[in-house]
């Protein structure tokens, strides 16, 4: 249950304007950054690979140059002009005599050791004889290695007599009597290592390979690390024929990119954080008023005070809030007016009803019925009772506020009949409906009866002569017109005018000249149909009065609304 609620909350959050705004802003910021970062990495990787390759080529060229220079010097030592002391020593040895060799052997040792001192990396110089005897800077001894080559040759790496790893450069000694004699130089691997100590990258290295593909020197011993993807650059040494190989690990190049990547990612994160805050602020600035408005609307539906809505800013949302507040105020005002109107209408109806059901009206009518019964005018009595019953039934109309025109006409007819009997047939009445279709129209009840009552009591009866009440119902283009005319005493023009002004709301009703019934009808008609509808009076003294009531068409919905609001 909680999960469902949480999921609903999340879904609601995701679909909120604020979330969508934030995600949109982030997407807008992330997309160009990601594209730019990707392009930067690609371009930088290419550039860096090219740079590393160039530098690696420089490295191997430099190493090859150093090696060539060094071995050229060594070869120069080996190919120098025939040395008198060496020549004499060779002759003595080849004659198997070392007697009186001291002069030569000592000079050779001294010479060889001096060369060792001045040439770093030169581990030993030696003269090797075909029988394995060797005179070197370390003495005069025997060796298992006897060169057989007739040309310059590089041998090794190998471990020399004293446990040092060396590369031996050997060539035949060319002096007289130097047959089967070789002169050689041992170069220690530390020297090669120092010459190959250039590298194109922190983990990269340079190794040296001979013509046969054997490793001469490598920082990894006599092997090459093949466990990783590498960038290789090679160059051949002219003097030695060796291949100088520079190795750069590919991941090192990529590792250098890591900085750029970190920078890019950092930038993206920073921008995203910044955009996130900005988006949160902007979305808050936009969604907050909307949410306030939403909250306010919700409160408004609960009849909360619309005036409490705080509206800040000048943007569209603020304007919308202002309009919304105005609209709510107007709605409230209209509702208030409507309430007042409905209350008034109800009051008017009650008053109208109360006015009709006056006690003496009832008593007199009942007296008339009793009198007719006493006179055994049973049929008239029944008819009168029936008219009275219809009168009350129609007055109440089962609580409905809207009745058919036919019903209202019937109500007036009963009223006129009863009043006619009450007042001794002192007047005639006639009801004329000009268009029968009008009878089916709807209208507020008890609008017509007050007019008829006025015609009887204020027109016909004061005239003290037989009178006539004429009721005409007709249809106009915008409503239904009821005309109630009498031939009674009529009114002075000033009174008519004053009365019409009162009905039009232009003047107040006078205390001594009550016109309660007319005002009641007028207000009710105008409340329901508007100010263009209502009553107008026309009268001439001694000629009678004509009252015209115009009402609008009530459709079913309006009738229903009117009835419900009442």
């Amino acid at each position, binding site marked *: 249950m909680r999960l469902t609620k949480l999921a609903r909350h999340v879904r609601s959050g995701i679909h909120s304007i604020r979330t969508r705004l934030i995600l949109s802003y982030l997407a807008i910021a992330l997309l160009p950054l990601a594209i730019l970062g990707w392009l930067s990495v690609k371009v930088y990787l290419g550039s860096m690979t090219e740079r590393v390759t160039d530098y690696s080529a420089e490295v191997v060229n430099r190493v090859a140059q150093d090696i060539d220079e060094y071995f050229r010097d060594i070869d120069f030592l080996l190919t120098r002009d025939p040395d008198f002391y060496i020549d004499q020593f060779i002759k003595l040895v080849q004659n198997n005599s*070392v007697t009186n*060799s*001291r002069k030569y052997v000592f000079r050779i040792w001294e010479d060889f050791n001096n060369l060792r001192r001045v040439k770093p990396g030169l581990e030993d110089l030696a003269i090797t004889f075909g029988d394995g005897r060797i005179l070197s800077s370390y*003495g*005069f001894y025997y060796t298992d290695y006897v060169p057989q080559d007739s040309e310059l040759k590089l041998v090794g790496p190998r471990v020399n*007599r004293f446990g040092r790893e060396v590369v031996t450069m050997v060539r035949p000694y060319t002096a007289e009597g130097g047959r089967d004699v070789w002169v050689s130089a041992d170069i220690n691997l530390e020297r090669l290592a120092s010459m190959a100590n250039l590298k194109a990258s922190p983990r990269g290295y340079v190794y040296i390979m001979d013509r046969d593909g054997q490793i001469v020197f490598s920082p990894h011993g006599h092997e090459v690390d093949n466990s990783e993807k590498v960038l290789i650059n090679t160059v051949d040494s002219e003097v030695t024929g060796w291949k100088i190989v520079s190795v750069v690990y590919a991941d090192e190049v990529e590792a250098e990119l890591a900085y750029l990547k970190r920078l890019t990612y950092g930038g993206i994160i920073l921008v995203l954080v910044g955009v996130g805050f900005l988006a949160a602020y902007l979305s808050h600035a936009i969604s907050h008023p909307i949410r306030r408005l939403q909250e306010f609307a919700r409160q408004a539906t609960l009849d909360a005070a619309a005036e409490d809505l705080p509206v800040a800013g000048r943007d569209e949302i603020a304007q919308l809030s202002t309009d919304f507040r105005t609209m709510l105020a107007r709605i409230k005002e209209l509702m208030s007016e409507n309430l007042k109107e409905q209350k008034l209408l109800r009051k008017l109806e009650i008053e109208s009803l109360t006015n009709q059901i006056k006690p003496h009206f009832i008593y007199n009518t009942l007296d008339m019925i009793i009198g007719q019964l006493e006179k055994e005018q049973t049929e008239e009595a029944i008819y009168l009772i029936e008219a009275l019953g219809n009168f009350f039934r129609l007055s109440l109309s089962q609580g409905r506020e809207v009745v058919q025109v036919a019903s209202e006409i019937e109500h007036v007819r009963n009223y006129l009949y009863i009043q006619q009997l009450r007042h001794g047939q002192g007047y005639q009445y006639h009801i004329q409906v000009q268009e029968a279709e009008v009878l089916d129209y709807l209208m507020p009840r008890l609008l017509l009866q007050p007019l008829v009552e006025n015609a009887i009591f204020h027109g016909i009866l004061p005239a003290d002569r037989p009178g006539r009440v004429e009721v005409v119902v007709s249809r106009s283009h915008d409503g239904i017109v009821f005309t109630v005319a009498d031939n009674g005493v009529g009114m002075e023009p000033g009174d008519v005018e004053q009365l019409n002004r009162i009905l039009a709301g232009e003047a107040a009703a006078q205390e001594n000249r009550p016109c309660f019934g007319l005002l009641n009808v007028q207000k009710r008609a105008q409340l329901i149909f508007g100010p263009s509808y209502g009553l107008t009076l026309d009268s001439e003294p001694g000629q009678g009065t004509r009252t015209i009531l115009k009402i609008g068409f009530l459709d079913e919905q309006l009738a229903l609304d009117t009835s419900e609001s009442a």
Partner: protein
Amino acid sequence: MGDLHKSTACAGIIVVVLILACWGALAAEQLTIGFVPRSLGNPIFLDAFENAHQKALELGVRVEWLAPFDFSTEGQLAVIESLIEQGVDGIVVSVNDVPEIQAAIQRALAQGIPVITFDADSPGSGRLFHIGIDNFKAGWEAGAALVDIVRARGMDKQHLTAVIMTGEPDALNLVQRIDGFFTAIGGKLDLQVDEVLHNQDNVDLAIIMVEDYLKHNPDVDVFFFVGGWPFYVPSDAMPAFKQWAHAGGIAVGIDIFYDALLLLRDGVLQYLVGQDMASMGALGVELLVDYLRTGRLPGTDFVEVGLTYASQENLQELLQIYEPWLVK
């Protein structure tokens, strides 16, 4: 007659076969002796070098002559280790009597390689025996000669100052010579040693040190050379030394060879005691090969070679005996 011919032919074949067999066995057993002087750069060992090789030729063995050019214990250790590694049959060394060398010799002995010393002994190493001079006696003879010279000059009542040049402080033979020297002059001369110069067994350095010292201390009375390191150059190559000696300085020393005799002739040196390095070389090979082949030892752990003496009295005779080396 025919039988006689057949018998003679068979005997000849047998003899040839036996000779070839013995020759093959001999070749298969050709011994290798490692010879380790203190340094290659000190010409004093050249006599030993030549004579050791000559003796090796005579005995049908190999000699491997190995040393650092300039003396150093580390260099000697590397050489001894290389000989052990090569599996030579015996080793002859002139070393400092220091623990590192002792240990190296003991390693060789432990691997069945007999080791003897020459010139400079290492009695603490367990070597089989030592071949050399009586170093104490050599020093004593030099001291006694100094006393005679001083007395002859009427300086024996004076307070004398002296400087001593030696090689390595740990060389036992040099220490013994100095002991003998002071024993000889003890109570006879009022000799005060102002300085002891250590030349690290380096000939070139020895010459520089002598010249430098005498330039700054020309008033020193006596110079005692425990070995002949600076004697390989003509007197004119050491002007300060020559000037000092001609001004009355007295120089005595140990080691006799042709160039040293020339210095004696020029009056730069007054007396020399010589050691027979040639015999040391020859005996080193001979006695060790004999031990390897027969198991016989000399019967003593010190095989002494004789001393020779040089002064103005026998100079011309000696110049006829010694040949110039011309190594410097």
